[in-house]
Structure formats: C-alpha cells, structure tokens
C-alpha cells in the first residue's frame, strides 16, 4: 500500500500558489512607457511645455492642403470663388469648384477636423501652462501669446468658411460634445479678445517671424477688423505693423515668398520630416514637377485678365505649362515643389497686405492722399505705373480692391473673403457660375459632425 507523504515540495507549492494570490495587485500597475508622456509631465516644466506648443507648429504636417495652415484657406475658397480650377485633381475638389460640396466630402471634413484638433491643442496648452510651475513668467507669456494667435487664426478662417461655428474654449469633452454653433459675432468677439491678449503677452518679447509674434497678432487683428468693417481700428493696427520698421517690402517680387523675405510678418517653416526637399504645401501642390504635367490647380480667367503682361507679379507669380496645345496657368508665388536650392516658408501674413489694408482704411476714413501713397507703394513694387493724385475717390476704392486681387491672389482666400465682407459675393459669382446660389457662400458642416452632435445645424442649401 503506497501513500504519498507530504514533503517539502507540497508545502512549497501550496504556499507558492497562495502567495501568488496575494502578490498580484502590483503586477498590473504600469507606467507609461514606449514614448509617451502623461499631461502632468508635459506641463511640469518649461522645456516640455514648450515642446507641446512646438507640437502645434509641427502638427500642420499631417494636413497637407486639408488644414488651414496647410494651404486649405487658399485652395478651397479659390476653387469656390473665381480663382482656381481643379484641372488635374480629384472629383472632391471639383465639388468645391461647382459649389456643390457634399456633406460627406472628405476634404471639407478634414478642414473642420484639423482646425478643431488644433483648437484642442491650444486649449490643452492653455490649461496645462496654467499649472506649470517650473517656468519663467516671460516664457509663459510668450507661449500663451503664441497659441492664442493660433486659436484666433483657426476661428477666423472657420467662421469665414462656415459662418457660425461651435466656440470651444476648453478640453472637456463632456462640456463640448453637444455644444451647438455659436453666433458669428461671438466668435469674432473671441478672436479679437484672443488677439488683443496675445498682443499684451508678446509686446515685450522679441520673437522670430517663424513663431507667432506681437506683429503677427497685430496684423491678423487688422485683417479681422477689416472684415468687420471697423476701418479705424484696422488702420490703427496695420499702422503699428508698417511703422514698426521691422519689415520692408522686397524690391524683387521673386523674393517675396522666399525664406529670406523681409516682408514676412509670420511664416511657418514646414516640418519636412523626411527631408524630401519640400518647402511649402502650396508649392508642392501648385507647382507641377515638370513641363509635361498638367498642374493640379489652374488659374481661372478672371484672375489672369486682371494683369498686364508687364506686371512683375504676372511674370513671376504665375507659371504656365502648355500641353497638347492647351495653356495651363498655375499660381507660382511659391516657386518650388521640391528643391534644396531655394528656401521658402509658408507665409501667413506679410507687409504688402498691411499696406493694402491701411490704404483701404485710410480712403474710407477720407485720407485720400495717404491711401494713394500706400496703394502706389504696392503698384510700384510690381513694376506698374503709380496712379495719379487726380484719380476719383470712388475709383480709387475700386483700384485698391483690384490691387488686392492682384497682390493677394491665391493667398489665404483673400478674394473670397473680400467679396464676403463687401457683400459682393452673389452679384460677382452669379454671372460667372450659372449654378451659383445664395447659399454657396458657406461650406456645409461635415455630415459626421451633424450625425455625432445632434445639436449642430446645417447651413442652408445642403
């Protein structure tokens, strides 16, 4: 008769299994590893906190053309208006040209999505910087001043494209996910508040033009006031920029969009992470790689008709490919698709626009002569004859507006927004596009947003 004896192994095993019952709670405690930081760590000190802000400048990389800072503010208003035609681009671009944007157009969805992603980033950084201890007051002011401008810029273009938009000022999704659209006036109010705060935060700080700075806030504020018809305020802000002496118009129009341009108030250096020689998204998209390629986007006749052949801007800022006997004109402000021979940054605001803003505001303020000086400054740089002082005041306004079209064509939707602020959109577009309707001035709120937030409403006509 055999019977197993309790031996040391028995006790050891039983104890072992029992101990493992107890010891386990700690096993599942795990820290973030593998290249991630918790938000507490990100906003613990100034080095990491600045990296969070820098992330915003890098973030644009994910959104070639789709994001406002990636060329969307140029391409889509250009297509929807009378500047661009999608000669060699997908059918989704054609919907913008035809002013029949479907609510599930993925390009339209991306504009909205990337803008709100960036707004989230700003809000997260604002909330985080509030908690940061290991940071100098000066650094904190600098970072807050920068990101407020990024938020204001996003909201400015969002409301220009969509009208009323949800005004999101925190990261709390429980508070935000059912927020309806906020009235445009309120959005503008926030934009102005953000920009004036940014001015205050940055007034003492000398920033490079590749980072949002005091003057970029001021220049954007001038533009916002202009859109609202607050000409006196716009003039005041534009004046601050022009009179700062920090910027000057480039003599040679070829150099206006180069990285060395003295005219640049704020420009983004594109995060060319893979070092492919890409300089700007607009250059990459607009400039065909060789003469046998049909450009993706070609300039429409109303733009081409504005220029005389001797206009330096016509010569240098418009390119042309001739294929099978057809002429394809394309915007060439940014000269290069990919190269290392010329450096270009993506310019958000530049001095010439401030001259034109000031010219218009001065004229509307009755300062005819001063307005003419500003206008002629731009004309002369383009190699055109200056207007004489004998010109009619009403005519001068038309000249200023036309000069804006020439100087600022395919640049941040300037033409589209001018037509809107002047109330000329319908009467201008109607004769040009037979399908135009009164609702074509706004893009549709993307379908997914409406589906996932039942409190959002759609723009008329979609």
């Amino acid at each position, binding site marked *: *008769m055999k*019977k197993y004896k309790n031996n040391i192994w028995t006790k050891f*095993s039983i104890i072992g299994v029992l101990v493992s019952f107890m010891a386990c709670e700690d096993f*599942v405690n795990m820290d973030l*590893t593998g*290249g991630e930081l918790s938000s507490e760590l990100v906003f613990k000190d100034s080095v990491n906190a600045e990296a969070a802000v820098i992330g915003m400048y890098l973030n644009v990389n994910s959104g070639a053309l789709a994001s406002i800072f990636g060329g969307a503010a140029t391409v889509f208003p250009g297509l929807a208006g009378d500047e661009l035609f999608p000669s*060699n681009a997908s059918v989704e671009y054609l919907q913008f040209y035809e002013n029949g944007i479907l609510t599930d157009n993925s390009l339209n969805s991306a504009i909205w999505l990337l803008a709100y992603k960036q707004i989230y980033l700003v809000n997260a950084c604002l909330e985080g910087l509030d908690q940061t201890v290991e940071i100098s007051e000066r650094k904190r002011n600098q970072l807050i001043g920068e990101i407020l401008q990024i938020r204001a810029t996003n909201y400015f273009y969002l409301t220009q494209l969509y009208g009323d938009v949800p005004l999101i000022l925190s990261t709390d999704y429980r508070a935000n996910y059912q927020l309806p659209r906020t009235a445009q006036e309120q959005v503008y109010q926030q934009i102005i508040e953000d920009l004036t705060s940014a001015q205050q935060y940055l007034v003492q700080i000398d920033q490079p033009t590749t980072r949002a700075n005091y003057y970029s806030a001021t220049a954007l504020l001038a533009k916002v006031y202009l859109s609202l018809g607050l000409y006196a305020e716009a003039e005041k802000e534009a004046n601050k920029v022009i009179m700062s002496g920090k910027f000057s118009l480039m003599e040679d129009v070829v150099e206006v969009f180069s990285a060395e341009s003295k005219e640049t108030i704020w420009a983004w250096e594109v995060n060319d992470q893979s070092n*492919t020689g890409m300089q700007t998204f607009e250059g990459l998209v607009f400039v065909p790689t060789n003469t046998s390629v049909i450009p993706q986007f070609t300039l429409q006749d109303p733009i081409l008709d504005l220029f005389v052949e001797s206009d330096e801007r016509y010569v240098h800022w418009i390119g042309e490919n001739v294929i099978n006997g057809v002429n394809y004109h394309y915007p060439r402000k940014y000269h290069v698709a990919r190269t290392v021979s010329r450096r270009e940054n993506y310019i958000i605001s530049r001095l010439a626009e401030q001259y034109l803003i000031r010219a218009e505001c001065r004229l509307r303020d009755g300062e005819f002569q001063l307005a003419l000086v500003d206008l002629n400054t731009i004309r002369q740089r383009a190699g055109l004859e200056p207007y004489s002082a004998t010109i009619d005041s009403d005519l001068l306004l038309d000249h200023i507006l036309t000069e804006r079209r020439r100087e600022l064509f395919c640049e941040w939707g300037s033409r589209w927004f001018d037509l809107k602020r002047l109330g000329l959109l319908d009467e201008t577009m109607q004769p040009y596009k037979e399908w135009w309707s009164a609702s074509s001035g706004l893009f549709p709120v993307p379908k997914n947003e409406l*589906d996932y937030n039942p409190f959002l409403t759609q723009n008329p006509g979609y």
Partner: protein
Amino acid sequence: MKIIYTIISFLVLSIGVASAQYRAVGVLKNQNGETISDVNITLISGNNYTTSDRNGRFSITLNQPCDTLVATGVHVKRVEQSICSGDSVILIVETLNNHLDEVVVLGYSQTTQRYLVGSVTKISKEDIANQPLGNPLLALQGRVPGMTVSATNGLPGAAVSIQVRGQNAIKPDQHGRHHIDPPLFIVDGIPFSPQNQSINQYQSAISPRSSENVYGGISPFNSIDPQSIESIEVLKDAEATAIYGSRGGNGVVLITTKAGRMGKTQLDAKLDHGISRKGKTMPMMNTTQYLELRKEAYANDGIQPDLRPGLNTYAPDLLVFDPNVSQDWENYFLGNTAQNTQANVTLSGGNENTRFLLGSTFRRDTYIYPGNFADWKASFNSNLRHQSLDKRFSLNLSLLYSHNNNTSVGTTDIIGVYRRMPNYPDLLDDQGNLVWSYGGHDFITATVANPLSYLFHPYEMKTTMLNAGLNADYTLTEGLKGRVNIGYSTLGGNEWSAYTNKGSNPFNHLVRRTATFGTNDFFSWIVEPQLIFDRMISKGNLEVLLGTSFQWDNNRMTSIRTEGHLDDNLLKSITAAPISSATDRHSEYKFMAVFGRASYIWDRKLITNISFRRDGSSKFGPENRFGNFGSIGAGWIFIDQADQNQNRIINFGKLRGSWGVTGSDNTSSFQYISRWSPVPGAYQGQMGYAPQNLFNAELGWASTTKLEFGIDLGLLENRLYTTASWYRNRSDNQLINYTLPTQTGFGSVAMNWNALVLNSGWELSLDYRIYDYQKFRWSIGANISFPKNVLKRFDGIKTSSYATTYIVGKSLNLLLGYEYAGVNSVTGVFEYYNADGDKVPVPTSPSSGQLNDYKYLGSLDPKYYGGIQNQLRYKDLSLDIFVEFKSRMGANFLRHVYSGSVVGGASNVPAVLEDRWRNPGDDARFMKATTIDGSRNRTNQLFPRSSGAYGDATYMRVKFVNLVWRLPLMEEWKENISDATLSLGGYNLFTLTSYEGNDPETLGFYGVPPLRTFNIGLQVKF
C-alpha cells in the same frame, strides 16, 4: 472516427484502504494515452464490479490474491487482464466511435461530452486538415453553431473575421461601421499574441482595407499550420467561458495541437497539389456595349467629349482608342490559375512514459494574377510528453514555429482592373515595356493609367511565429496536484512595399522611387500556477481548481519610409535612399487573475460547476482595475443507458443550464490618462509633442451576462446525437469608443456605456451514424443557428452621437438608408421614397439627429446559418461532402458600381447595365447613362445608400468534397507501409444563390471572391 485527446495523462492513484481485503487499482486509457471514463470493470470470478471515474481511474476489491478483470462498455472493446492484489495497472482499451465519451478541452480542464454542461463545439483534426487551406480559421466555416466566419477575400493570407454569438457592444467607427467583438484565441494554453488582429501595416492586394472591406488585412493565423492541429474548441456560454473571466465575454477559441501516441514510431507523409481559379464573376460589357453606353451618356448630358483630362468630357476611349478592340481585363488580371503545393511530414511515437511528435509542413500558394507572386510558408510543430516512473510528475511541451513569406502587389488598384475600358490598348510594347501613350495621346491621368503598372508596386510580408507552451504537474499528495502553465508567444512581421520607376507613370514625376519598411512584433508571456484538488464525496467526485494567471503583452511597430533610390533594384535597401524617415509605436499590457472552479458530479447524474475569476488589467485606472466574474452551471442526466443495452429509443438525455457574468477589456492601453507623444520631425530644431487621446479616468471592465439552457439527446443506441441550445446574452456595461464630434478635438473617447444589447438565439446540431457496418458507413453531421441581435435600451439616444446610427428595438447591424423606388420612366433617373411616401429623385439626408428620409431597411445580421456534412465510406473508398449555408441581406454589386462613379463615365461596368433607361416611357431597371458625377448628380450619388444597392445574399455552398481511396498494398510493402491513401478534393465547388454580385460571402463586386480549388493528395504512413 473520433480521436480523443487530453492535455494531461493522469497517474495511477492508490486509495488508502483500511481493511485487509485484496485490492487493486488502475487507470483505463486508450491507445492514444487518453483516460477513459464510464467503463464497467467486473471480475471474472464474479461479485464485485466498479466503473472508471472521469479520470479513468478505478479501484476494485478482488475475490482472491490474483484475479482477472473484464472491462466492458458501449464505447470500448471488451478487454480482459489479470491482476494481483496491490497492483496498480494501466488497462489499455480500444475506444469505439462514441460521441458521448469524446473528450472536450475546456479552459484549464477537460471533460467528456457526457458531462459537458457548457456550450462547447469541437472541431476535430479530420475536418481541419482535409481541406486544402492555409488558414485554420477557414476550416471553421459552417461548422460551429453560433459562430460566423467570413473570409475578407479569396487571396492567400487574407484576414478572416470571426464572431461568436453576435455583437455585444455598440462600436461603430468614425464612418458608422461596426468593429466586431473578437473572441479570445488560446493556442496550446497560451493566449495567441496577436489574437485575430491583422498584422500588416501597409496596404496590399490582400489587404485593401477599403470602405467596402473594413476588416481587410493579413491574418495572423496563416502562421498556424492546419496540419498541426488536433482540435479546435469553441466555448460560448457563461459556464464554458467564465473561467476566462474578463476576456471570455465574446467567446473563446481554443486551438490544441497534435501530440504523439504510444506505440511504434510512425512516419506520416502527405503531399498535396491543387489548382485554384476565381469563382463565378459577373461579365463586364464588351467594347460595342461600352462605347454605345458612353456615346449615349454624352448625348444624354448634352456635352461633347474631348481630350482634356480632369473633366467628365475626357474621352480617349471614344476619340483615340481602337473601337474594334475588345479586351476582357478582368480575365487578363484575375483569370489565371493559382498553384497550391503542400508537403507535410510527421514523425511520432513513444511509450507509456514519454511520447513525442515532430511535424513539418511546407506550403506554397501562387496568385491568380499575372506575375511571379506567391505566399509560402514553412512550419514546424513539436510536442513532447513525459511522465516520471513514479507517475507523480508529468510534463507537456509544445512548440510551434513558422515562417511565412508573402509577396504580392502593394497597391489596391489591382481590383480596379474590372473597370478599365474594354478598348484600352495593349499594355506592353514589343520590347516588353509598359505602354503610356496611344495614337499620340499620352496617358497622363489615373483614368487612363496602364493597369499593368499596378503589378510593379511590389509588396512583401515576412512573418515569423513562435508559440511555446510548457505544462507541468506534480502530484503533491493524494488528491492534490500542483500544476504550472508557462507560455511564450511571439509573432513578428516584416513588411516592405515599394514604388518602382518601371511602374510609375512617366508623366507624373511627383512619384519618385519610394520604399517603406515596417516591422510589427507581438510578444506575450504567461505564467499560471494552479492547485487541483480531487476527492470522492458521497456518491460523487469533487474537483476543485485554484489558480492564478500573470500575463504580459507587448506590441511594437516601426515604419521607415525611404525615397530617392537610384535604381529599382536598390529598393530593398534603406542605405541606398538619400531620404528616409522613421516612426514607431509601442504598446504594453499586463494582466493578472485569480481563478477557481469547482465541479461536482453526483452519481453520474447531476453535474454542478461553479467558477469564479477576479481579473486585473493595466488598461484601467487604479480604482477600476479589478473585476469579478463567475458562473454557475448545472446538468441533469435523466437517461443514461450506457451500461444496459436495452433497446429503447432514447439512450441518453441531459438537461443543462448555465448563468454567469463574463467580461471584456478589449480596448487599447492607457485610455484612463491623458497622453502626449513626440511628433516626428522638428520645428527649427525643436521637438514637439501632440496629445494622443481624450481620457476617461473612470474607465473599467465591460460585462456580459449570459444565460443558456440546452438539451442533449442520444437516440437509436446513441447513433443519433442531438443538441439544442437557447441562449441570451445581455450586455449593459459595454466598453466602447464613444463617437464624438471632432469639435471635441478627437473622434472618440473610451467609455463604459450602459446601452443594453441583447443577443439571443437557438442553436441545433445533430450527428447521425445512419449506417455503421463493417463495409459501409454513412454519417451525417448538421448544425444550424438562428441568432438575434437587438439594441434593447439606449437612454438619451436622440441627443447622442448615435441618433442617426441606431434605432432602439433593432439590431446593431441595421441598415439605415433611402427606400429605393425604381427608375422614373419619364425622366430616366432613380427615385426614392421620402418620409411622406412620395417618390423623389433627391431625398433629404439625416441631420441634426433627425433621420429625415432615412428609413430602417432591415438588419444585416444573418437570419440563420450552418452546415451539413456527409461522410460515406464503402470498403476502401470514403467520400466527404460539406455544405455551408447562410441567409442574410447584403450589399449587392450595384453598391460598388454606383459608389463614387456613374454608369456612362470612362470606366467599364457589368453587362447587366444594358437594361438601362434610354427613352421616355422605358420601363428599365437602371437609370440613364450619364457622365455627370458627384454633387451635380445627387440621385446617382445617393443610390449606394438606398435599398436598391442591397439584396438577399442567402447562399448554400458546396464548400468541400473529398474522395479518399485507401490504396491496396502489396504484401511485401505491408511490412514497411501501414497505410497509403490517395485523395481528390474540391473546395468551393459551387454555390446556390440568388445573390447579385460576385460572391455572397465576400459581398460586393470589385474584389477577389473565394477561389475554387481542385486538389490531389497522397498520404503514406510508415
């Protein structure tokens, strides 16, 4: 033939006897070393008798010092053996084909069909290895009641989507499509490290991952050789899955690999060769039909075709190409024959103490498209079992290794070949170069890109898999055993995808030579110490298991993109590229559990099982980390005439029921804290971070409450065995990615959500040995499932993100869209019913939480599905026929035809579109031809979202026919060769369906449907 399998060979245990009687103990095993229960043991000298318990053990009092035992039972051949008092013997008996005594592997234990209380379906090796498949999951199609298995396409390596008993969680992605709840996959006791996730990072022909094929990808189960599998068990109800606690909520799939058998060393060699061709597809228009369509479209639109690319007026097919040429591009690209070759060698043998098995398989599949592409793999499996001489210690080691190499095309455009104009010119010139212009017209845009260029976008995926499991147990003292299960599972994928210059459009220099290199590595280890207690109490046997489990999972992905190589032949080099950039991703997960299970079988009549589990997962915050799960199951065997061969109709009857709570932690790690990670690149030399998620600190376990009742009956001397089950799963604490509007900064946030989802249904299965004679045998196996999925409750749905996605009271897999009303005979365009019931060409789309003209169009869930197997054997010939069927609604070919394109544009369409409206008054099936697309043709654009793009996709498919001939052996060979068979097989032979499209399983149109394969095989056993 039923082959029985166990994980652990039990030892002979002596039972202390106080009296001075003659006594002997023993254990009953079959030739495979598996223990046999319920065998009657009597003595030749009469009087005493006993029965082997569920571990095969028995103890008997002898009449004299030495006696002779007789073992009998309905499931075994009678055996006699002499025995003396004090002996401890192993009685080897030969098992007969008996369903009730078939061993079923459960989590951490095993039982027989007789005592099975939970809902478990076992698929044995014959049903897996007989089919000419590279992926074992495909062998489960139609075999398991309650489980749906679908191939995503017919190419070798393609992902297989699997779901057990329906969708539990509301989980649409950003585009409103469902992600299915995956079951837990365990291979030889170890959680398979990649589970059923697709292992590729890049797109390829196998993995289009398009809007039509959300689950597209490369399946990790290609790495598991079907030839190495002994059985696959699918665990469904609470009783069976609760032991897996938090991860058993969506069912469990246990894969067990082969082990060696006692006896002479045996070499088994198998060689198979097959040819595959794509199945039935719809014919496309020829050039005459196509050009007529095109001209008609321009006439309808009132515009003139021209040669300016980019607009709908662009018509090289009308203006440049030869109208007398008619090509069948679909046939050119997908009409080839693929070759499948497989060789398998298995060596096994051993004795009572040590058994081993070594197996190796080589398999190569080529593709149906032109070019030198193939999927090949070499796999190796081994199993070693050992027990010490005193039988207290035993060990089971299993090792699986495989290497897989898949070469295919890195572009998904290959499926676009269906749409190339039929009069498109020859693809190659006399020198064999791709043609990029015709008649002086250059092919600048994608509309006219040379389709052969798709094949010059090479893709390669190399996968290495190692799955090693060690299971050791030691009998500590009588009735108490210590066991440890240690496992390591790893799968590494290496991908490469390149754009060659040869395949690039010479007119588009934006595309330079690029190559991307990716790795995707999964690691997982597990340690599970356990104690097993076993004792007779009253008239029953109590078994208690206590254990803990520690698991660590790790996944790491890298991707390197390179650009600017000087030569196509350098594309496999990173060094050769002047430009490169890298990204990586890493995730980690730890898991632990304490679990226990008590099982008591009283008088072989009443079975009670209780299990509990407390799980902790690193995926949740400290407060919500642990969850408790458990189940109760009971069974009553009301008739069991195993021991009395009375001729009654019902020989066996069992009622069973179970209730329990299981869960899920199926979400990604660290959703409970706000995470930031570095952004690739730098801004003026400075690094930046980006936030990764919206966080939810309260995130915790999901749970599903499962209820099941079933009845098992054995009829006609147990030749007919049937099972019927009813189940209901309630999921009211779900773990979901709650969809958010992007104004919140992200598209979703991980949440526990208390919408109530009910999955219920009936499952029936039947095994009937109709004839069971020496020379002629015929048996049938059949199963059918009737599932039902309902969203029972969703508080505040009207103001939620799901207001226009779900309807309370309908399935989660519902179809919402426009109700199609036919073609207007006057205007010639499609019409739809609006909410008021009027026919309109452009209905109102849902918005702001209102469905508007959207309607509930039905459920896409299967109504029923199942399979029927027939096995016929006459002398040396045997024939297996397996038929699979499924009834459901699905997208038909029109969804593809009208998605993002029009009929009349510069792409070919199926010939059935001849039945289109041409003149007022026409009663046609399809709207008039047009080239106007998108926003200017909303009527056409909305069609894929209407009921017109869906239809019945019910099918019955002869999945598999296999004829095996046992070769007559010459006398002089018999010494060396024990068995030789020749087999002829056919796979996906034909399909009965009224479905409109290429295939009712993969649905849609522009894809590769499951291939039809013919196979010849030779198997020799030495």
